[in-house]
């Protein structure tokens, strides 16, 4: 462990930058192709100069994609709020109570982290169909409100176990009921975890493909990941348009990544460290 920047560190730095450049080629290709003109046959590796915005225009105007983008954002937002409400309340109980119910529920939720969705998929498909929610965004929200619970509860309870109880006690002395104490005292303290849960769940929901493929395909409603499949089918002879569409579909998640990079990375490391 040398504390100076030696020539070996410099060599390592050069090597790492070269590795990162190779690693980032797919991103270069996505962006570079999105700015080629729609019927261009030029190599994906040659920089597109000056950038051409025609492909992005076509992709933006192509009916399905904009609506799908909106659907993805709505489903992600609504499901996130529901999951946070469910998980924060339940974790508060699970972290504080010592009853048998609390212990059984804790074990079930942690076990849920390992449970593959595939096992529940077919019966769940039938339940959603019988509820008449097939092909609707509500069906998706319903599935997410259960699917993302274990991970969120896991993060919340870990954090809550470290929070001293005195805050709530003083709230109680001030005449707060349990719900009041939760809303005015506990939930505000949970803000850092809530941010992490929100971002990690949001990325997971926005990028999810398996669930919307089963519950939405064939219907008029689509999310971005499913819409891309048909989008590629339509524009398969015009790769620049395909990549322009995929770039547009990635914009929300890239904005989130740039804005909250630190939180995402530390949430990822911290959440899994358990």
């Amino acid at each position: 462990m040398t504390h100076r920047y030696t020539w070996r560190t410099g060599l390592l730095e050069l090597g790492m930058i070269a590795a990162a450049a190779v690693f980032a080629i797919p991103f270069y290709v996505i962006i570079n192709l999105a700015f080629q003109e729609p019927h261009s046959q030029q190599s994906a590796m040659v920089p597109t100069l000056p950038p051409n915005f025609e492909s992005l225009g076509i992709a933006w105007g192509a009916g399905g994609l904009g609506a799908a983008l909106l659907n993805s954002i709505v489903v992600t937002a609504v499901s996130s709020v529901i999951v946070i409400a469910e998980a924060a309340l339940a974790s508060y109980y699970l972290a504080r109570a010592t009853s048998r119910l609390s212990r059984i529920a804790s074990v079930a939720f942690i076990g849920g982290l390992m449970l593959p969705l595939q096992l529940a998929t077919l019966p769940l498909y039938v339940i959603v169909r019988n509820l008449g929610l097939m092909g609707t965004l509500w069906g998706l929200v319903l599935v997410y409100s259960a699917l993302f619970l274990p991970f969120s509860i896991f993060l919340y309870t870990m954090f809550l176990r470290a929070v001293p109880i005195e805050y709530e006690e003083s709230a109680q002395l001030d005449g707060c009921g349990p719900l009041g104490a939760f809303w005015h005292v506990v939930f505000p303290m949970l803000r850092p975890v809530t941010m992490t849960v929100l971002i990690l769940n949001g990325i997971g929901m926005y990028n999810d493909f398996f669930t919307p493929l089963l519950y939405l395909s064939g219907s008029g409603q689509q999310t971005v990941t499913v819409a891309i499949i048909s989008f590629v089918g339509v524009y398969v002879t015009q790769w620049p348009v395909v990549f322009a569409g995929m770039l547009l579909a990635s914009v929300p998640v890239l904005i989130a990544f740039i804005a909250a990079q630190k939180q995402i990375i530390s949430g990822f490391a911290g959440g899994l460290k358990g």
Partner: protein
Amino acid sequence: MARSAATRRRRGQFVPWWFALPAIVVFAVFMIWPSIDGVILAFQEWDGVSPERVFVGFDNLKDVFSHPVAFGAVARTLLIAFALLVTRNLFGMLLALALNTRVRSRLLLRTVFFAPAVMSSVVLGYTYKYLFSPSGPVNDALAGLGVTELPNWLGDPELAIWVIILVISWQTVGSTMVIYLAGLQAVPQEVLEAASIDGAGAWRRFFNVSLPFLAPAITVNMVFTLITGLRVFDDVYVLTGGGPANQTQTISTLLVQEAFEFGNYGSAAALAVVLSLLIAVLTAVQFKFLRRQRGLS
């Protein structure tokens, strides 16, 4: 201690049980019950529509191991999971070690290597499908190097599976790296310096000092890689759709095909049960093995 027990009792009294009710009900109705029903379904024959579900015992599960396509999918899923264990942990660890030095651009490099983890696998899958298409950039580069027999990467059953493994490794190595970086922060600098002064080289410092501190990170990375690897669906669906000739079919892609294309819900449920058993057994083995390793070190 007595105080903390009393405190805990007070905590329990203050938070009412119905706080957990919404989560418990939703989770029980939409995850736990369907999972149990999924296990029951594995012993039945059902087309997904008719009111009758016929009990067939272990027939569906036997089919998974006697039918070449289903058995191939199980074997291939295991291959993918084990290959990912190697690639993600090897390269994730190397990247973390390199970025844990005085390298100046480490924050930028961390961003680059982590970025694929936040992108949709559908977008990334199509990007790789384009890169590895018969006349795509990869083959262009090979042609430029003078290779005359250009491979059809995704159309060749022998090669396609390795492209899939490459894509998933590329996509997820950043998340492994981040967890190893967090683990490396637990290694005390003084001990490393002391070892260095005592003449321990980089290898010895890594194996004798850092590695024991990295044990929790290794466990987490191993377990999560295994689970992600066994569940693999998106990348296969986009890159090959399970083809050519079912040669890249995995448990999840075959499950979807069996149920929603062929209407064999029972067979599909049997595949899901096999997948769950693999996850349960292999995770338990990993935990046991890794704990013993930690005990030794």
